[in-house]
């Protein structure tokens, strides 16, 4: 159902049918969330008794969700295009006055893709973690948190209203906090967890204010209601809501200016980085923007803001990725950059939504693949993350090398690999829609080629630079199996775009984009992109591959390198602009509180204390004295009554 039209294309309205009517596997929708949640509850409440089989249960629930999601996908593909949105009402959640919020689930072509990504990649990472966390005494707890995360993320993408999304939103924030700080004995991990949590809360302010504005404007948080009435609200309101949603999305998806937590989040165990900080959680912001397309379509200014933020982040992340020697931080920078691409596509409106989701999925595959590969390398290198200590690992870790290489080719957009299709379409759309941002995206692609080649060369090629006592070895098969699967997906992910399938699939959710006029044939854009990437790769080859790499980072480097190593001074900017003024304000408030407010209170307290000192003499402990005072009271009341009545 399409309700209103603007600028030649129509905005679809969320108009689901109920799960009971849909029949089939749809009434079991709630189980998708309930299974991992149950796993988390059992593992967290079960305590040590579940240590022996906790990881198996955790994996089983994730796989169970995956199987169910697959069945849902098959069932959905068998339905008519207009009937693919299915909602399930579980119970009345909040019922206050005129506001009714149900615990409703919504599965439609958009969320089913997320479902597949989360449960699929999630299951693989669960399997991988069995091996990766084998020697960790707290492995059962780790799986409990992973399950909690999966449940929360599924809640986020399956909720039918913004409050449900918010529930999942906070849930993934919590799980992320727990998992980043999983090795809480390391102060850096604890600090990173706190930082991620706090910065995410800043984003959550935007999210919760947006929800509040939904209530004020539409009297509801339900997608159905809001999308049906979106045309009725003023553009100013919609722009405000859009900007607030963008703030929320920026927090969760590590977009500038709330990007600082993602790099520190690499303190968590590597499977966490792969699952949360590459494949799923950080994409929640993209999901939010795409899901709220009815808001952004009505607010062009907010859309522009999305595009600007996305482009800045895209370049920011890419630059950081170029300078990091820590393999996980280099990948984290790349994640920021790639999410920037997704946000850019999402900001381009109806032309880009499908490509944003497409890139999100392929990125989920190849980035999870590469993170897990990095984990595998670290596993073999005694948890050393410094790439300057790697080198020449391709012979010793053949499986890891080959799978990592697949991910590498995918991310730089090597022709026919999954990343090629998705990134190419984003750059093409951006170039057509707004050339300035398109060119930035194109440059970003070149930089991507540079830093990924650098990672590849420093890790697997060149001479060996291992430290003494390190004996690199291939990881066990329980870890390589997910790598192989993800590598295959990284290669073949482009299948989703076969015949424009994903575009057509998402039409019921994001609307059908009108064909835009291409100044050149599409192949020209692809060639340009490939050429730019090739330049990046070549520069990397010349500057890294051809020269010996010092095993400690050189210090006499240009300003740009130094800035990039310091995350482009993101923390310094935060400190100067927010943290220090905040501290000063707090100090001022504390002293004011001490002298003024506390003085008032302590003065009053002393007065009351003096009174009490006098009065406490009456409390002599004799029950008969107390009884006498009661009787005296009775006499007085009685006398008063009589006097009044006489």
């Amino acid at each position, binding site marked *: 159902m399409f309700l209103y039209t603007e600028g030649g294309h129509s905005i679809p309205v969320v108009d689901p049918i109920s799960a009971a009517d849909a029949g089939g596997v749809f009434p079991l929708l709630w189980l998708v969330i309930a299974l991992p949640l149950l796993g988390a509850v059992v593992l967290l409440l079960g305590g040590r008794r579940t240590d022996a089989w906790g990881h198996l249960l955790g994996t089983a629930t994730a796989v169970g969700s995956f199987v169910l999601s697959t069945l849902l996908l098959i069932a959905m593909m068998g339905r008519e295009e207009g009937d693919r949105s299915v909602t399930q009402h579980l119970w009345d959640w909040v019922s206050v006055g005129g506001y009714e919020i149900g615990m409703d689930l919504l599965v439609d072509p958009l969320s089913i893709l997320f479902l597949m990504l989360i449960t699929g990649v999630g299951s693989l990472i669960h399997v991988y973690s069995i091996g990766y966390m084998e020697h960790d005494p707290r492995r059962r707890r780790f799986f409990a948190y992973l399950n909690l995360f999966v449940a929360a993320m599924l809640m986020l993408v399956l909720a039918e209203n913004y409050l449900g999304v918010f529930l999942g939103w906070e849930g993934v924030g919590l799980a992320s906090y727990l998992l980043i700080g999983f090795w809480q004995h390391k102060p850096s991990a604890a600090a990173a967890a706190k930082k991620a949590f706090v910065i995410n809360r800043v984003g959550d302010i935007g999210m919760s204010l947006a929800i509040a504005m939904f209530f004020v404007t539409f009297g509801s948080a339900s997608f159905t209601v809001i999308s049906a009435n979106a045309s009725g609200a003023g553009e100013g309101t919609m722009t405000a809501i859009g900007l607030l949603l963008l703030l929320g999305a920026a927090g969760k998806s590590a977009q500038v200016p709330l990007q600082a937590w993602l790099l520190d989040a690499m303190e968590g165990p590597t499977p966490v980085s792969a699952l949360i900080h590459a494949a799923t959680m950080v994409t929640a912001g993209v999901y939010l923007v795409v899901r709220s397309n009815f808001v952004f379509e009505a607010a062009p200014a907010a859309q522009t803001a999305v595009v600007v933020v996305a482009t800045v982040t895209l370049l920011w992340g890419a630059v950081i990725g170029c300078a990091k020697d820590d393999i996980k931080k280099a990948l984290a920078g790349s994640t920021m950059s790639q999410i920037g691409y997704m946000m850019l596509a999402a900001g381009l409106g109806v032309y880009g939504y499908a490509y944003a989701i497409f890139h999100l999925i392929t990125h989920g595959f190849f980035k999870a693949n590469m993170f897990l590969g990095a984990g595998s390398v670290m596993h073999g290198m005694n948890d050393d993350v410094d790439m300057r200590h790697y080198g020449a690992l391709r012979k010793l870790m053949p499986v890891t090398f080959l799978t990592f290489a697949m991910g590498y080719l995918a991310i730089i957009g090597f022709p026919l690999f999954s990343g090629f299709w998705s990134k190419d379409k984003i750059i093409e759309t951006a170039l057509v829609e707004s050339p300035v941002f398109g060119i930035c995206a194109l440059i970003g692609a070149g930089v991507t080629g540079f830093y990924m080649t650098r990672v590849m060369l420093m890790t697997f090629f060149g001479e060996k630079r291992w430290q003494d006592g390190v004996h690199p070895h291939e990881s066990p098969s329980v870890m390589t199996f997910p790598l192989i699967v993800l590598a295959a997906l990284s290669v073949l992910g482009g299948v989703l775009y076969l015949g424009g399938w994903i575009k057509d699939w998402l039409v019921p959710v994001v609307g059908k984009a009108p064909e835009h006029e291409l100044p050149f044939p599409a192949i020209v854009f692809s060639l340009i992109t490939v050429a730019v990437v090739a330049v990046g790769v070549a520069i990397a080859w010349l500057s890294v591959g051809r020269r010996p790499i010092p095993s400690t980072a050189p210090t006499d480097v240009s300003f740009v390198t130094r800035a990039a190593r310091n995350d482009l001074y993101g923390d310094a900017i935060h400190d100067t602009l927010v943290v220090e003024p905040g501290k000063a304000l707090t100090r001022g408030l504390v002293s004011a509180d001490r002298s003024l407010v506390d003085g008032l209170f302590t003065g009053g307290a002393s007065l009351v204390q003096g009174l009490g000192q006098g009065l406490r003499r009456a409390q*002599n402990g*004799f029950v*008969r*004295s107390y009884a*006498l005072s009661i*009787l*005296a009271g*009775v*006499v007085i009341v*009685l*006398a008063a*009554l*009589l006097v009044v*009545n*006489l």
Partner: protein
Amino acid sequence: MSITFWLLSAIIVPAALGILFVRKAVHAALLLAAVMISLAIIYLTLEAPFLFAVQIIVYTGAIMMLFLFVVMLVGVDASDSVVETIRGQRWLAWTAGVVLGALLLVGVAQISLGTMVGLDAANSGGNIEGLADLLFSRYVLLFEVTAALLITAAVGAMVLAHRERLEPKPTQASMAAQRVRDFSETGRPLVPLPSPGVYARHNAVDTPALLPDGTPAEESVARVLAARGTVRSAPALADDITEVQRTLGDVDGGPAGGATGGTDQASGSGHNTENPEAGA
């Protein structure tokens, strides 16, 4: 009716005042019982036969019983000291009380409700039936709540009266072991003390039993009797026996000896036939 009322009032008010002044709790309880029974009779005159019965059964029967029970437990001799410990409490209490009474009486004197309607109509179906109708219709919820209150009170009383056992309950085996230990340490007898001697002519509890060698067993007599000095000594008893034997010898002229003792005495006296020899 009027006479009944005034008569009963003449009992009630002095009895109630007595509670204020008697020093022993038992006397107070008796006076209170008198007040309650008198009130019961007043209820009867006020056409409340059911409450009359309940007042006597529950109040005078059960509650006063409980009071007396506790009085006995606490010590029936305990009496209140007349010295007032809280300064000013007594005269303040009396002043407040008297003022309260005066105010109440003034208040009562103010009102005039006319003559009593009487309960003839309400009691026409029987007083108990009328009460039951009310109790199980309009007041049924209150009734149930009261039931819950009673159960709670019963449980509460049990909880309060419960005393925590601090050491395990002694078993038969441990008690036996304790006896043996006492015997080895202090020489306390292992077996029960010997029973006193049993003689036909005497209240035998005050007479010690005789051991096989003819000596009296002092422990066989209760300590209380020993303390009072009412124990008959075995030699004294021996005198009796010789006297008996002499009498018997007088009657049939036969030789004195164990044979006569055997003829007229019960089997239990088998002991004391040896007694004369031992005592002599």
